[in-house]
């Protein structure tokens, strides 16, 4: 029989993982909700930001917080570039082609990373203590990352609800024809959305590199999970994605402890498939 303390530790780790996954999913979900295109390569952009932080910290000895800020800027820049170079020409193409164009980007980023930096796993070591609470060990790094992730999500929420641009972005996602009639320019809003979504990737990259090692195929490891969280929460539904991330993280973390790491993921994916049948619009969608 499994010691309950391990189970409790798995639950706590699941919550911490949930924060990171929610951050990943929110940026992607924002882009999806507004532009209606799934960026298959989104997590690969996150991996590029992780590389940036890694090299700034280990090679040039920058402080972590400064490298993190650079990572956010770089993420925003990448988002804009992807939008201008790849998404803009295919905005009116069939969805399959849009999906595949960013899929091509996935191949490109992964192999280009292999070419430049080889397949080595790289991570930034941060000397921080491990907390012990009632027999449970919690890494302080992960706790910090969790707190910052929540902070970033609150910032995104405030941006979307309290600013003029944010309101316009939400309006586009509701009706892209009507917003053009209201005098806003959807193209400009798309660009802003891509930049904000990219910046979220930058935040995620900075927070992930202190917990996980980055390698060229990092995007493939977290990518499918990120899409599933977006779909589960309802594509474009921010609050839904947030909770879906915690549900999936719990399944993976607890399932991983009870059975095995792979089976944790298998169970999570099967739950996703079944939930899609039961609630096709996401777990928080109202039945039409």
């Amino acid at each position, binding site marked *: 029989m499994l010691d309950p303390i391990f189970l409790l530790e798995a639950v706590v780790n699941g919550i911490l993982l949930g924060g990171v996954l929610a951050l990943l999913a929110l940026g992607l979900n924002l882009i999806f909700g507004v532009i209606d295109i799934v960026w298959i390569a989104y997590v690969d952009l996150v991996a590029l930001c992780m590389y940036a932080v890694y090299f700034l910290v280990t090679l040039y000895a920058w402080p972590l917080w400064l490298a993190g800020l650079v990572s956010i800027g770089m993420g925003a820049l990448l988002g804009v570039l992807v939008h201008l170079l790849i998404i803009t020409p*295919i905005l009116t193409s069939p969805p399959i082609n849009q999906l595949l164009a960013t899929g091509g980007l*996935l191949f*490109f*980023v992964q192999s280009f990373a292999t070419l430049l930096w080889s397949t080595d796993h790289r991570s930034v070591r941060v000397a921080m203590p491990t907390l012990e609470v009632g027999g449970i060990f919690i890494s302080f790094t992960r706790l910090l990352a969790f707190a910052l992730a929540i902070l970033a999500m609150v910032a995104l929420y405030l941006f979307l609800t309290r600013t003029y641009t944010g309101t316009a972005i939400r309006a586009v996602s509701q009706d892209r024809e009507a917003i053009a009639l209201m005098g806003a320019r959807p193209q400009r809003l798309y660009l802003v959305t891509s930049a904000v979504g990219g910046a979220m990737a930058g935040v995620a990259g900075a927070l992930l590199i202190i917990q996980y090692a980055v390698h060229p195929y990092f995007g493939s490891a977290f990518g499918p999970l990120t899409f*599933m969280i977006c779909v589960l929460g309802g*594509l474009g539904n921010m609050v839904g994605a947030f909770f879906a991330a915690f549900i999936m993280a719990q399944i993976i973390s607890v399932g991983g402890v009870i059975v095995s790491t*792979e089976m944790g993921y298998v169970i999570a994916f099967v739950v996703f498939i079944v939930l899609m*049948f039961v609630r096709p619009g996401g777990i928080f969608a109202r039945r039409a």
Partner: protein
Amino acid sequence: MTPLRAAGLLALVALAVVPVLPLGSAQEYIWHVVIQIFLWSFVGNAWSLMGRFGLVSLGHGAFLGVGAYATVLLWNAYGLTPWIGAPLAVALTVVLALVVGYPCSRFQVVGHYFALVTLAVGEVVRLLIVAERDWTGGSLGVTFQTTGTTSAGWSLQFSDKRVFYYVGLAAWLFGLWVWWRVDRSMARSAMEAIGEDETAAASVGIRVARFKMAITALSAALTALGGALLALYLAYANPDTMAGIGVSLRIVFAVVLGGMYSLLGPFVGTALTIALGEYLRIYFGIKLIGMAETIYGLLLIVFIIFLPAGIYGSLAQAFRRRRAPPSRDVPARA
């Protein structure tokens, strides 16, 4: 006989005599590349049976993987000849496809959602293969064991590549024939109507669920057969090259690159991607690892942006437009 048909026949004869041509020291390698093109085109064709009707599956890696692994594992564990093992693998895959496909159709999981559900199925199969490493070999893959004194006709392992050349050619032609039969059938009109609008299709009396299940089962069965043949030819199966998101995307890429609404589109796309991959691999060799794939990825993006109907599809469109202006256009999917 039209000139087009004559050219096709000529090309077929040329393909059939390639193995007897003296190609010098590179002949084994050329055969190897062509066999792969045949088998992957066959798989691509199977995918396009669903893809062209708007059932964009990113989970064909699952079907490929089950086909390949079931065939290999039945032989390794029970000594079951692939003559029986491969059909069993195909049957198993059809069951899997229906188990996933039926709820998808019943609950109207379409579009992005269908793509992501199938993607999850592909990942589940890949992760299960990795997790059950005791008997599947895990991420190291599994080798088709040929130790023992069984005849080649029983284990379907041939040291002569030409056997698989003709097997591959036959499989590819069979795939084309199936595609052509579907293209000429009532089912095609029904499926196109379903792809445009399910509710409208149902309202004019099309049995939506039945047609969807039939095309899904057919596509999955052919993909599993392709997986079994690939595993037999390579005598090896690996979860990363035979299941999961990577291989699923590769199949879809090749087909979309060539053009998924045309008979030879999957072949053109597959031949091009494999030839390009091989060329870049030889050109760059072991220096600059990743260079070949980098160029491949870039080209994919460029092709999808500038030739959205695929290479063969775009060419065929241009050709048709020149010959007969009011032609049937490739159905656009919004």
